[in-house]
């Protein structure tokens, strides 16, 4: 009874290296699915939202339609959207039943509904007079939106857009419903295998949290880089400088 301290140390090391690390590696490997789903949906959603926002700016009818569809999609619970994409949309389009692809498509639809609203709200913060000034110089409407409205609305939208990416990262754990073995799904299996549930959920949670922190940190750096000097975008500290 009562081994030497050195023995306890060795035992702990054995426990960590041989018992825990493989499980942690297993969960970490699942994180790739969260990243793939969240990042692909975010980028695809941003591209579609840009187009829809530009369309909304150019035509009131289009703006009304976009707003209506966006409202409808935002009201659908994400799990229902996942199921509908996988079991209704994919068969209807004769697409192969690929769970990962269905996840990406479902979350792209969902995030587009949010991002287009973010971009449109941000565009309305740009002075109408600046658009008129660009047009009065002889620019086409499309160029004026591209060079004058979008650069400014993107700056205004940046924090909200990165919040959206951060919530996508968390929502992507719903992929388990389609059998995607993401970090959280793996943590559940490990919980069952080891008999400890809280600790593995915490491990999975911490991993997702760490990625979210990186995303938000990146957002702050980008905001700082793009901030227009002399405006509050550069930070409140600018006021007292």
């Amino acid at each position, binding site marked *: 009874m009562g081994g030497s301290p050195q023995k306890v140390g060795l035992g702990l090391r054995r426990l960590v290296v041989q018992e825990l690390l493989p499980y942690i590696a297993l969960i970490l490997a699942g994180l790739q699915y969260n990243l793939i789903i969240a990042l692909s949906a975010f980028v695809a959603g941003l591209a579609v939202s840009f187009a829809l926002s530009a369309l909304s700016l150019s035509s009131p009818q289009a703006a009304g339609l976009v707003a209506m569809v966006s409202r409808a999609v935002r009201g659908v619970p994400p799990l229902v959207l996942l199921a509908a994409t996988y079991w209704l949309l994919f068969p209807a389009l004769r697409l192969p039943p690929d769970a990962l692809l269905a996840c990406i498509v479902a979350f792209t639809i969902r995030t587009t509904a949010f991002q287009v609203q973010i971009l449109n709200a941000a565009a309305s913060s740009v*002075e109408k*007079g*600046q658009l*008129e*000034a*660009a*047009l*009065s*110089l*002889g*620019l*086409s409407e499309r*160029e004026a939106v591209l*060079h*004058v409205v979008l*650069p*400014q609305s993107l*700056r205004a939208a940046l924090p909200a857009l990165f919040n959206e990416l951060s919530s996508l990262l968390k929502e992507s754990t719903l992929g388990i419903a389609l059998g995607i073995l993401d970090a959280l799904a793996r943590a559940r299996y490990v919980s069952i295998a080891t008999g400890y549930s809280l600790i593995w959920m915490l491990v999975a949670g911490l991993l997702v949290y760490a990625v979210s922190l990186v995303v938000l940190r990146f957002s702050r750096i980008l905001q700082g880089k793009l901030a*227009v*000097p*002399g*405006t509050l975008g550069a930070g409140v500290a600018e006021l007292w400088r």
Partner: protein
Amino acid sequence: MEVVLEAVNLVKRFGDLKVLDGASISLRRGEVKLLVGPNGSGKTTFLKCLNLLLRPDAGSVYLEGVEITAPGVDARFARQRVALVFQEGYLFSHMTAFENALFGPFKVKKLPRSEAKGLAAEALETVGLDRRFWNLYPAQLSGGQRQRVAIARALAMEPAVILYDEPTSNLDPVGAEEVAAVIVGLARSGVTSLVVSHDVSLAADLGAEACLMWKGRIVLSGRLEELPGLAETVGDGEIALFVRALARRLEKAGRVVACRQLNC
């Protein structure tokens, strides 16, 4: 002298409201005209129609002899040649002063970068903006500096004519004087200009022919000091009242004495 810009019987409606009701004007090369009139008389709409930022419902605008309101003429061509300086300036707030001046020649005319930069620099020199402000953003500039950059942005396009919409009315006296000096300087150097302004010192310094806009048409035109006398001949009490008020302000500013001589 050749007529640069001519508008004939412009009509513009917004719904039931007839904002322009047969407004006409003509500017010869190098000529400067002042446009006055009460709020809501259609001055801003008139300028926007001359620049084709708004399309008139009826009437024609001729630029250097070409009818730019004719079907098939690209409005963008007209806008590049007829510059418009707004009351609030409306600089692009995410661009520096220099980038604002560069925008027209580089992004609109699509000139090579070095040539566009030359035009932008020349325009900023012309409006007298000190070089140390060139890389500052609009939010870091004073009102007068911002409005001068707005004029430089218009100048860099090398327009045939510049239309100013109350360019000094949002500025403090110092800023207003700065901007007025630039506009008068440009006018004297032969830049064809149409200036909407009730800034009496700018108006007097321009010494230009004044046109009075009233309910969507130009009802009077003549030298500023002759307007009160002319107004009496129109036989509209309200018009006479407006012109007298304008003349009183000029007189208070110590600019024009002709008003008293005309017994108005």
